[in-house]
């Protein structure tokens, strides 16, 4: 047995770079969060802690615009995540529990298509499509586009979860005279739940955060939070945008954290 002359696994410098990586990833977000509590009217000068810009988001001159945009964003995200998660759950069942079939590779390609096509191309293509079939742009076009590109984000955690579940549970249920439908709804579905919740939350964030596709398929005057923020930023960075960004950022972080702990909780089975 050779005794290690040194630790072959560790390299000097890799740890500082990892810490640097974390600083790079978090610094911009932390800085914006801190400055969103700035009392100053200017984004440059720090004048002490205050919640005035948060108040401004809710009661300030632009509050109506932001409230409407936030409502649009959340309604679209909830519906898009629900629909895409349902579609993805059924598709994952077919892909993981459907045996080997001819269209399997093609189906997988179709499901991952929204991940492979650059977002700006999806945006342009969807705009052209709605235009060609004479579909008026508005909230509905945003919703339909979101459902399509949320499917792979919901699909991946769901199918990963199902691949980890042995089919002996469903087989046992069916040996005890459960129908296939019962085995699915009473055994497989509950076992898949952590994956489904994860998938739903990721789809929800992806929809809530999307800017590029929404920007192309939204109708005139219809805004979601990201498009409203973009419109404001183009006129110059103002403190109220930092407050609203911090709130949206927090929603994403909370959602991802829940998703992480939900999918982690059952790895101990």
């Amino acid at each position, binding site marked *: 047995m050779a005794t290690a*002359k040194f630790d072959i696994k560790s390299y000097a410098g890799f740890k500082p770079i990892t810490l640097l990586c974390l600083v790079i990833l978090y610094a911009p977000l932390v800085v914006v969060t801190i400055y969103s509590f700035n009392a100053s009217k200017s984004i440059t000068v720090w004048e002490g802690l205050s919640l005035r810009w948060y108040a401004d988001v809710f009661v300030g001159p632009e509050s109506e615009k932001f409230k409407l945009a936030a409502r649009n964003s959340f309604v679209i995200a909830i519906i898009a995540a629900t629909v895409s998660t349902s579609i993805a759950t059924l598709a994952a069942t*077919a892909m993981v529990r459907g*045996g080997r079939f001819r269209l399997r590779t093609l189906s997988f390609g179709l499901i991952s298509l929204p991940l492979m096509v650059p977002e700006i191309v999806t945006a342009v293509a969807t705009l052209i499509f709605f235009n060609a079939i004479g579909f008026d742009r508005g909230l509905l076009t945003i919703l339909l586009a979101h459902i399509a590109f949320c499917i792979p984000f919901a699909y991946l955690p769901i199918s990963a979860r199902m691949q980890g579940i042995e089919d002996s549970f469903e087989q046992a249920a069916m040996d005890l005279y459960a129908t296939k439908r019962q085995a699915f709804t009473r055994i497989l579905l509950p076992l898949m739940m952590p994956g489904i919740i994860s998938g739903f939350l990721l789809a929800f964030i992806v929809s809530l955060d999307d800017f590029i596709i929404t920007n192309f398929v939204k109708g005139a005057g219809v805004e979601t939070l990201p498009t409203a923020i973009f419109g404001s930023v183009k006129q110059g960075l103002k403190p109220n945008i930092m407050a609203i960004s911090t709130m949206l950022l927090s929603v994403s972080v909370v959602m991802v954290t829940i998703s992480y702990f939900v999918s982690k909780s059952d790895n101990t089975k």
Partner: protein
Amino acid sequence: MAGGAASGGSALTDTYAESRNWLLMPAWVVLLILSLAPVAMMLIYSFLTKEFRGGVIWEFSLAAYDQFFFDRGLFGDEPPVIEWTYIQIFWRSIWQAGAATILSLVIGFPTAYFIATRPEKVRPMWVFLITIPYWVNLLIRTVSMKFLLRDQGPLNDFLIGTGLIDSPIHIVNTNFAVQLGLFYSYLPFMVLPIYAAVERYNFTLSEAAADLYATKWVTLRRILLPAVKPGVIAGCILVFVPSLGSFLAPDLLGGAKNFMIGSLIEEQFKGNAGNWPFGAAASMILLSMVLILLMLFSRQQAKTQASEG
């Protein structure tokens, strides 16, 4: 599970084989209509004639592609010469995306390696820390980057405060700012596949090399790196591809001078240019580039898998 072969966790069974068509139907319908049909329609639009202000006339034309590659003079009657404007924009995009990819590799590889060599219990926590920023809105992250990098921004304040520099460094509206923005947007995509590859790597190989008097760096370069190459390539693709078509980083961090493909396409549909067939053609060229890259990549992955048995 089918014995030890399922160690990868892929337990494919056929419990619901006879209902699979019904189960897949919704996904097929939605994606065919909302994902595939739009791309097909875009392809058709790229061969149509432009209407004066947006939209198209249904008349076959190669004008969009012709405009992209050839210059026929102001009145279109001169002999065609190669039009460099748009090729240059594509070339700049490739260069910007490439620089961002190399930057993420330099930071991402050591990070992924470091995380993969932590005790098994803490690894998921590290991975989680790396992924959180990815899930924060890309627009907000890009705006945050712009805020941080401004001439009077916190980064310059910090550098002046520590005495490292005397006057602010001008970063925003440069190529470098765009590269930083792209790097920042997709860095987690570099870390994750490399992490997965290093985690699977069998370190007894490195030990064997060390026993044969290879130095650590030789071991890293000649033993580990070839073994984790597919992960490194996957990371590079995952950063390069979205960077290439990016619109937000060049728009917010690059200013008017640092146009990329994404901005060119946007101009045709939302901006003043209003040439839909040309925008569709530019999108098709971008999409073809990406698909060729992905095809080369999947062929390379298949080759590696085959050689692993």
